[in-house]
């Protein structure tokens, strides 16, 4: 039984590693300027976690195999170096390992979250609500008009509660259900929730951020590949959570300009 169990542990450990080594389910492609930092950090962590996992499981299996059928009269043996050796090993090996992960990981995090958007980044506001995202572009004046919660109306398609009669800044705002952006231009995304918690997750963009009702947050990023990508909600927001999505359309500058013009005409 012990030997069977030891073999099962080894087989499971190897079988678990195969899809990782073979990239059976790889990370989604990266279409952002900052994503390589996350991906490199991911690969480093996978190497360290993978080695720790395989080494520990195989050692566990080996010890079960070897020490489960002692000969009569055999004495117990003590691990060379005893507990202090293992404690020192844990501090030195794992301590160094996690410190390195922490320091390098903080750099990747900082590149995304602790930098400011460039002055010429394109501002876009995204509003999340049960169960849809809407996007607002400031129009030629470069300014967003204020949100009036009491004027939000799904029925009248006034998703942001804009008062275009009285608010000058709102008059040229462009509202869309899709998120079109030009390639290789930095976007400054201003995040607003109208009701409950939601999240903005685009795996390819290496971006995930919760919407916090009552607290407007912002993100900035640059997409590098033209294409259509899904934006999904990752914060449980109610019965339609699974179906709350929109599309990010990364376009060439010309296509983006044409799209903005077309959307402005539709307002």
């Amino acid at each position, binding site marked *: 039984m012990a030997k069977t169990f030891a073999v099962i542990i080894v087989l499971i450990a190897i079988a678990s590693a195969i899809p990782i080594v073979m990239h059976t389910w790889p990370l989604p492609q990266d279409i952002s300027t900052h994503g390589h930092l996350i991906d490199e950090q991911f690969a480093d*962590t996978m190497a360290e976690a993978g080695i720790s996992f395989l080494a*520990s499981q195989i050692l*566990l299996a080996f010890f079960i195999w070897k*020490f489960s059928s002692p000969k009569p009269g055999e004495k117990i043996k003590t691990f060379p170096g005893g507990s202090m050796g293992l404690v020192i090993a*844990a501090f030195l090996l794992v301590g160094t390992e996690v410190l390195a992960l*922490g320091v390098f990981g903080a750099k990747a995090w900082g590149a995304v979250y602790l930098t400011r958007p460039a002055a010429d980044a394109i501002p876009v506001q995204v509003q999340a609500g049960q169960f849809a995202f809407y996007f607002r572009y400031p129009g030629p004046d470069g300014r967003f008009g204020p949100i009036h919660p009491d004027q939000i109306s799904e029925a009248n398609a006034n998703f942001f509660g804009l008062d275009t009669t009285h608010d000058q800044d709102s008059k040229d705002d462009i509202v869309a259900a899709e998120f079109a952006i030009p390639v290789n231009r930095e976007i400054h995304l201003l995040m607003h929730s109208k*009701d409950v918690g939601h999240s903005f997750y685009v795996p390819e963009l290496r971006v995930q951020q919760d919407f916090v009702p*009552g607290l407007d947050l912002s993100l900035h990023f640059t997409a590098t590949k033209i294409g259509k990508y899904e934006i999904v909600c990752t914060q449980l927001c109610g019965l339609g959570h699974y179906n709350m999505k929109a599309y990010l359309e990364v376009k060439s500058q010309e296509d983006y300009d044409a799209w903005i013009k077309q959307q402005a005409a539709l307002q």
Partner: protein
Amino acid sequence: MHDMSTHAVPHGAPTSFIRKHVFSLDHKVIGKQYYALALVAAVVGMFLSWLMRLHLGWGNLAIPGLHLLSSSGAPGDVMTPEYYLQLMTMHGTIMVFFVLTTAPFAAFGNFFLPIQTGAEDMPFPHFNMMSFWVTFVAFVVMVAGFFVGDGPSLGGWTQYAPLSAIGAAGGPGEGMGVVLWATSIGIFCIGQLLGSLNFITTTLDMRCKGMSLMRLPLTAWAWFITSIMGLTAFAVLMPACILLILDHVAGTSFFVASNLVIGDHVLPHSGGSTLLWQHLFWFFGHPEVYIAIVPGMGIVSHVLVTNMRRPMLSHRVLIYSMGALAVLSYMVYGHHMFVSGMNPVSAIAFSFPTLVITIPSTIIVLIWLGSLYGAKLRINSASLFALGFVSMFISGGVSGFFLAQPSLDIMLHATYFVVGHFHLVMGVAAMFGIFAGTYFWFPKMTGRMMNETLGKAHFILSFIGTYCIFMPFHYLGMAGNVRRYQAFTDDYLIPLIPVHRFITVAALVTGFAQLIFVYNLIYSRFKGPMAPNDNPWEGTSLEWSTATPPPHNNFGDKMPVVYHDPYQYSVEGASSDYVMQTSQEKLTNPHEEK
């Protein structure tokens, strides 16, 4: 340290059926009551997971009879999206609170902590009785959610505000369902606080003559450390639940910000904080992970030592490491909130303690592995589950390397990677600890033996099965598969559905394997062979030096006196390969921690 041998029995042996089996003051009966409650809760929780898995694999599958559970939640026996979320919420809540907290800590701890410390009972038997019965009431209130109004809450076991705080406007179950949820958990906290108080006092004040703190077995230490965490963590969750209830019934706005709009109407709340709930919840929630797993570490260590026929490489280092986990558990909770909108600098501040907590975790694993080296390992159902625990804890632990880092959390947060991680490290590992404890202590608790063949079959199926379920979760998460979705309608998720089907089949098979355990447990309780003696595993701690099952005051007429550290196995020059703590045999070369 007190010498309890001269103390009177705290309460006399009961004579009526009610005081003996229902409203009992005896910690052993209370421990069994907790175990029975956890068993019922585990069966309910597992059943809910089957329903969820079937729905995830085959979305429009009619599950025969499901409409009987809820006609609106499953019209035509097909689960609605909201009912999926309601079952998911109940699965998580029941498993975390009523199984993982209740069984390894409250059930085994109640039964064995006083015995292992050499006490006649806990110091506050009435509080102890109350702790179980309020937990029972909490369970009834929680399950009542299924049968009230539009069903239980759909907000997940974390109940993030403001969805959980805005009442029926949030969706089905978010009105009365949440009130019942918060009431149940609030009551549950009272039970845990009373229990923790008893555990701490028992450990510090009720030890028998000769039982210094370092002579306590690793189980007793694990329960002691857990009870300190319980006292401080549940004391935070309870007021959070009270505030949540007030947001529902008193028109307050603790967790609801101003100007929220639902259905084109502005909600009549203002001034609350969305993130306040998350901070309060996770200040409890992360220690809760260790409340679930540390007792398992204690049980596994205790079972392993007995079956390795040697003490751990270091008793003291294991205790200190479990203590370090407890202290650090309060400093790491923010890793659940990296992308929540809290200050990104605090994400880095929470990241480092989270990475550092891998050090005591690694030390614990290395001590287990190092102790296996050169041991004389006995293989039985209990030791297999203990070794299985070690394997699961390693697997669940290494994925923590990823989730400790905010930069990787950007990719992995709220995906199945997280689900795989916490199920392995907290769920399955803790369950394996419960199984190890059950197979090990069953003879002491009931006087009968469990069937070893069925136990080993249960183990092998559970071990392979849980890996088949939870390892693929990690792959799904890496591919961006979001959790808490009742169906996978996103373009990039559709190709992953076959993996979900594989997981569902594995979950059903593994689930049925648990029925082998339930059968073995119930059959052996009534028809199992009698335990051959009071110490069938040749253990050394105090539970093995008393009768089987132990008498009302645990040790009969003569209170124990302890002469040795807890694990005197394979001591050179001793008369046998184990020397019990109560043995007066003089050892020339004992395993001493002092």
